């Protein structure tokens, strides 16, 4: 790993100032960034740790919205969101392993937008709003392809507002080695319809399976999905799963998520 300077700002303003330097890099829980830096695949000159900023921590309910600080670790979400939004809490409880969940953060996961990460499915599957230091970004606009987001250089995810679903669940089929999602489906029912977001499967990253959403909005049962499938074109193919396998798992995991939600 190359060496770097560190900063531990106590406020968002201070963090934004530090991150305006183009060789600065934000550090959340580091659960992805540190292994990347060990491989010398990232070489920031300044690491700005975001874990000391009180406004970026914690889970807070406001009516039908659950607002979660960008630097909140997965374990805290799994625990503190359980009473308010069990589907979301359960998803957070399936990320990585217990030690990873104690360090990895919501904002870090979303900003990285790994195509196999779990949180993007929750954000897109709930129609969440990503709140940064400068603006509010709808999840539809936030995810812009594998490892790509709408965030500008130096922009920080302060919090994420999740509309609380009536019922929801996440079904994940784990890649056997990394335990990331080979395919994960987040299904959420709202008064105005059902949302289905799929992670792990597509070369363009997390996506909404609109055909399934329409069917489930009519009839929220796994039978409603009978005969529906996604095209394997554009699905990820790697040593753990060909595009056809991933496309198949999209249907299976979506059905399982619906069954779990009911």
């Amino acid at each position, binding site marked *: *790993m*190359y*060496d*770097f*300077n*560190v900063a*531990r700002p106590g406020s968002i303003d201070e963090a934004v100032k530090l991150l305006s330097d183009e060789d600065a890099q934000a*550090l959340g829980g*580091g*659960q992805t960034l*540190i*292994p990347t*830096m*060990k*491989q010398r695949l990232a070489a920031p000159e300044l*690491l700005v*740790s975001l*874990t000391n900023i009180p406004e970026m921590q914690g889970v807070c309910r406001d009516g039908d919205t659950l607002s979660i600080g960008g630097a909140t670790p997965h*374990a805290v979400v799994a625990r503190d969101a359980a009473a308010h939004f069990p589907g979301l809490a359960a998803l957070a409880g399936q990320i*990585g*392993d*217990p*030690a*990873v969940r*104690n*360090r990895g953060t919501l904002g870090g996961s979303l900003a990285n937008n790994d195509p196999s990460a779990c949180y993007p499915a929750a954000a897109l599957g709930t129609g969440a709003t990503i709140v940064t230091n400068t603006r509010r970004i709808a999840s539809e606009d936030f995810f812009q392809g594998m490892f790509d987001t709408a965030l500008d250089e130096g922009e920080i995810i302060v919090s994420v507002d999740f509309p609380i679903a009536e019922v929801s669940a996440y079904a994940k089929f784990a890649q056997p*080695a*990394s*335990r990331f999602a080979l395919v994960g489906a987040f299904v959420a029912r709202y008064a105005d319809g059902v949302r289905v977001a799929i992670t792990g499967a597509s070369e363009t990253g997390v996506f909404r399976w609109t055909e399934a959403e329409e069917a489930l909005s009519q009839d929220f049962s796994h039978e409603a999905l009978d005969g529906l499938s996604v095209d394997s074109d554009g699905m990820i193919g790697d040593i753990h799963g060909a595009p056809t396998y991933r496309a198949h798992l999209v249907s299976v995991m979506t059905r399982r998520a619906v069954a779990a939600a009911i």
Partner: protein
Amino acid sequence: MESLSLTVNGKPVSAEVEGRTLLVQLLRETLGMTGTHVGCDTSQCGACLVHVNGDVVKACTMFAFEADGAEVTTIEGMADGDDLHPIQEAFRTHHGLQCGFCTPGMIMSAAALLKENPKPTEAEIRHHLEGNICRCTGYHNIVRAILAASGQPVPERTATATADA
């Protein structure tokens, strides 16, 4: 260089480290506490687990500077003098280790589990160990040791012979 002050196993420690120094390097190289091990480069194996402010974390995937001001507990801090921690004792009694390399991480992981869930089922134990890899034991006796440490009945060791050995 970063100056840090933290508590390791109840003792105050100060150190000067580079930004890139990992917590596990601080423990092993700077403080000479080699019970925390490194078994992979990608945060999978869990040989490096320690507790930071009561939470179990991977010391290979956390910078030392991030532990500034924290209370760190390592495997060396689990026993009370000569008295083993009940989880350590259970690993010994139930043969929950062979080469011993993954063992510090397993014990730190088990301690985190039992704090949160004092009477876990076998399935919960196996699930909790998702981030701890062992190559020697097949996990069989690790699971039994954790059941024992939680004060629950342990499935009998099954070695029985019909002939009189």
